């Protein structure tokens, strides 16, 4: 028997592999809001490996609050209507390791909480998904998680403002390695 009755040990993850491109990406996946809308911002970056080379077969997912800090519970991420903000999106990296989302700037979800975009990373060669956070640039002094991270690594969790929005690069390994997260009960 593959799982004994009553066994509630979490199922193990496995790599997303090299062949997800025809299955997981879909039209509009990375457009939480239509690009070009007045409040649309770009969240983009490059995923790199331990040698500093771009990773052309990674997949990122983001999940975030709307600008007021509200957390959407609306369906429609897979068939976007252009008007409903679902808070969730998916983007594969291209041949240069680059990913890009069209979204809005998230607001704080509670008093004293710095706004961030929750990010999941999948890739060929990555045996289990990784979680991280992309904080918005600004005053982050009061944030509990950032305060718990060594100062020289804190910047890996903070997006950089650019002309269209925010840049958030991900380094899977090596110099400037992104801080990836582990949650209790996992």
């Amino acid at each position, binding site marked *: *028997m*593959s*799982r004994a009755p009553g*066994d*509630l*040990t*979490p*199922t*193990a*993850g*496995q*790599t997303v*592999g*090299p*062949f*997800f491109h*025809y*299955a997981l990406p879909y039209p509009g996946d990375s457009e939480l809001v239509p690009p070009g809308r007045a409040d649309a911002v770009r969240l983009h970056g490059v995923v790199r*490996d*331990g*040698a500093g080379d771009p*990773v052309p077969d990674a997949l990122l997912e983001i*999940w975030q*609050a709307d600008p007021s800090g509200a957390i*959407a*519970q*609306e*369906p*429609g*991420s*897979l068939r976007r209507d252009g008007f409903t903000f*679902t*808070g*969730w999106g998916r983007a594969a990296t291209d041949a240069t390791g680059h990913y890009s989302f069209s979204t809005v700037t998230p607001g704080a*979800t*509670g008093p004293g*909480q710095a706004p961030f975009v*929750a990010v*999941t990373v999948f*890739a*060929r*060669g*990555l*045996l*289990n*998904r990784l*979680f991280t956070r992309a904080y918005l640039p600004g005053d982050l002094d009061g944030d*509990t*998680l950032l305060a*718990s991270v060594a100062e020289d*690594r804190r910047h890996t969790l903070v997006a950089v403002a650019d002309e269209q929005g925010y840049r958030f690069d991900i380094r899977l*390994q090596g110099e400037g*390695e992104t*801080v*990836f*997260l*582990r*949650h209790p*009960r*996992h």
Partner: protein
Amino acid sequence: MVTQAEMDGEIAAIGAAYESAVSAGGAEETQPRLDYPPYRSSLLRHPTKDLHHADPEGVELWAPAFGHRDVGTLEADLTIQHGGEPIGERTVVTGRVLDGDGRPVRRQLVEIWQANAGGRYIHKRDQHPAAIDPNFTGVGRCLTDDDGTYRFTTIKPGPYPWKNHRNAWRPAHIHFSMFGTEFTQRMVTQMYFPGDPLFALDPIYQSIVDPRARERLVATYDHDITQHEWATGYRWDIVLTGAHRTLMEPEEEHA
């Protein structure tokens, strides 16, 4: 390129070191190692620093919602996406998605993708010279029901070769993607079929160094799911990692 025998030696050495660590009181590892050198593509793609402890906050305590607007009911049948019947063994794969407390994950998205009966993906990077089946794409989606049950009708995938080492073959598998009730429960994995002779040889399967944790990825043949003169049946239940938000809710809300 190393031979399968050399690969077997690498896998066995890591497995033996794990077994002796566990018998010396070390922790059971229920997830794959991120740093698992026998899977060559992982060498430069695993973090070297420990994962950093984070208490989930804000959006991390919630998951995106999906509904019938997102997923049509026919998307759960991978055998009816084209004009004719696909080649291979028609099979039903079903089971429940539960959270770490045993609660069903209701009305949530499950996505699958897989090779066809000959071990070939509809993917431009798949160079395996096995036939493409014009009647099989190998992509499906469904929503779990109120009991957390998902159900797909598909074709049993074939094993396929890859370039990790000389004569490397993946055991037959279906890729699964699941969401929970919280973002931190997100997972992607692979479901395997019982008794596959390639299990011992496969560094991706063996990257889960604990034998019991590996076996949880193997479906069970279930003759009650098998359908008369139509399809064989397999059962595979999935348990996501523990939830956090529900712990903070009053008991009556999820009684």
